[in-house]
């Protein structure tokens, strides 16, 4: 039987929302305080949901050790205590949490083979969260 398993991880990073294609005034009006030239930081929570058949022998969708190891190596090591604007993937793209969500989804979707990735959800603060489901229809 198919089940969905979700795991929450945390990392802290800084960013500045600024689009090179916009004028200073446009950046200011679009991004407000997030356009502060020195940047600012968040404690991000990433919720990763994978799905698959529950293995009859282990009772698991996938071994948490594999999922935790992958996220630690490929996501947390990449983003924790970083300035997102300095990373290659955000050289041409504004590091909004929408874009970060899609980047992390792509990383997990391409690299994690033990279960099927359903969605990535990121809480930027306790008040804001973002979800990306790829091409799949969201399930609630």
């Amino acid at each position, binding site marked *: 039987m*198919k089940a969905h398993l979700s795991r929450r991880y945390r990392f802290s990073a800084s960013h500045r929302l600024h689009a090179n294609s916009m004028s200073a005034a446009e950046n200011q009006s679009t991004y407000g305080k997030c356009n502060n030239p020195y940047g600012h930081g968040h404690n991000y929570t990433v919720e990763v949901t994978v799905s698959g058949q529950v293995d009859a022998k282990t009772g698991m969708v996938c071994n948490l050790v594999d999922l935790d190891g992958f996220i630690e190596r490929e996501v947390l090591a990449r983003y924790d205590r970083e300035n997102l604007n300095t990373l290659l993937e955000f050289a041409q793209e504004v590091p909004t949490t929408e874009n970060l969500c899609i980047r992390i989804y792509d990383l997990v979707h391409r690299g994690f083979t033990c279960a099927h990735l359903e969605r990535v959800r990121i809480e930027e603060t306790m008040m804001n969260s973002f979800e990306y489901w790829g091409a799949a229809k969201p399930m609630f």
Partner: protein
Amino acid sequence: MEGTGLFRNSRCIGGWPLTILLMVYLTRKAEFSASHVYHNPEFTAEENRRIFGKCNNPNGHGHNYMLEVTVKGEVDPRSGFVVDLKQLKEVMNHEVLDAMDHRFLNKEVPEFLHQIPTTENIAIAVWQRLSSKLERAQLHRVRVYETPDLFVDFYGEE
């Protein structure tokens, strides 16, 4: 023409009243505490340790599980309810909490005498215990939190 009050979802079309039934999802939470051990007798001791890690400690360990049961249904135009919450609470208490709260799952819950009580299997067992017992609403999702950072969703057999 739109209705008002309890019948606000009733409309008159072509002079005939037509009730438009609205699908609403309702979630109720419950907490239970239980212990378990992950061990498959078909595996060697070494395999059990390698696959299940600390969860293979033979004396077991425990969690405060948080259960979220989501039902869906059309809003009854007379009561305004999707489900009688009292009935849902009673079914959850009787079928799940009485069976699992403050229990050693491997030894005291029939489903887990021959199946490992992982969070996945607990979610499936809760679904199977509840799905036939609900009167009006239809079970949509069972979510079981083992910890605040790990949870499983089961939507029935897909």
